[in-house]
């Protein structure tokens, strides 16, 4: 799969660089809150949980307990368990292979895997995006501890809009079918509706209820439930 230039290299690299810059802001933030380089590297390399790392640093910095910091962070991380069913078919079947792959289950890597048209590219996109993103996140975090306030606020440059835009680009191809559109709209509405009512991390878990109306729409369109394990029928319809 490495013999020719793959289209997902460019996309994976672009999103990794954007995430790397957000890693720099994490490094700056954690450094200012009194975390040392080792702690920052451990968080970015071993945990590698993006926004949840900001939560950990924020809770500790504002005088919260370690239990509260880890608890609220892990609640944010809970969604990663739901990416399992999304990427399982692209992962090695051996247990050791899966244990290695697990570390690279980051929001973007499952999304890039399902965006490919065949299983081999899906696996390639998962590994390429996961590993590149992981490296950029670590490098960004380390750079942030050194840079301090030099680069200024990443929000000035719009990097906070880069994250949702990445997923917009990855969601659009799924909107070609009625059930895809229903799932997307209901999931977004449920997640936002849950924000004021639940702890951060819970809304995205609740968004899964959007599968119910989407299933109804799909059943009305194709009255043969249980058939068509074919991976991404909606992509074909939209392109």
């Amino acid at each position, binding site marked *: 799969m490495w013999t020719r230039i793959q289209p997902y290299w*460019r996309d994976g690299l672009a999103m990794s660089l954007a995430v790397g810059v957000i890693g720099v802001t994490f490094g700056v933030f954690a450094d200012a809150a009194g975390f040392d380089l080792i702690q920052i590297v451990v968080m970015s390399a071993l945990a590698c949980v993006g926004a949840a790392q900001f939560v950990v640093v924020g809770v500790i910095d504002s005088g919260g307990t370690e239990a509260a910091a880890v608890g609220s962070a892990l609640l944010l991380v809970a969604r990663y368990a739901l990416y399992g069913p999304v990427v399982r078919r692209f*992962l090695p079947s051996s247990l050791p292979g899966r244990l290695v792959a697990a570390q690279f289950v980051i929001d973007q890597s499952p999304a890039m895997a399902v965006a490919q048209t065949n299983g081999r590219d899906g696996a390639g996109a998962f590994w390429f995006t996961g590993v590149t993103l992981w490296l950029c996140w670590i490098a960004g975090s380390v750079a942030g501890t050194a840079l301090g306030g030099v680069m200024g606020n990443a929000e000035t440059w719009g990097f*906070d*809009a880069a994250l949702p835009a990445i*997923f917009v680009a990855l*969601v*659009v191809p799924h909107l070609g079918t009625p059930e895809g559109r229903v799932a997307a709209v209901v*999931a977004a509405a449920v997640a936002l509706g849950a924000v004021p009512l639940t702890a951060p991390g819970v809304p995205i878990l609740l968004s899964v209820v959007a599968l119910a109306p989407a299933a109804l729409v799909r059943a009305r369109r194709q009255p043969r439930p249980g058939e068509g394990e074919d991976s991404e029928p909606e992509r074909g319809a939209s392109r």
Partner: protein
Amino acid sequence: MLAALAAGSYGIRVLGVTTLGRIVEQRLGPLVSLLPVTLFSALVALMTWERAGELALDARVVGVVAGALAAWRRASMVVVILVAMAATAGFRAFT
């Protein structure tokens, strides 16, 4: 504390790609193909309108709408990211 964070995050990931993932996969059946659009659409909504556990309306929306238009016109990922960043940064600069 950081050991707990790392172990917990890794444990959640492993659960997803092993037992829990298999159970969810079996329960959902063919619906599993709709799980990505569900999760990533929720993620877009939260990354756009949520800030520190509360709903918020800010310049991110401008970038996401611009990025969505670019994606809809089948622009590449690189273009979508740059358009979104430029729109949000531009909106901030002029407000």
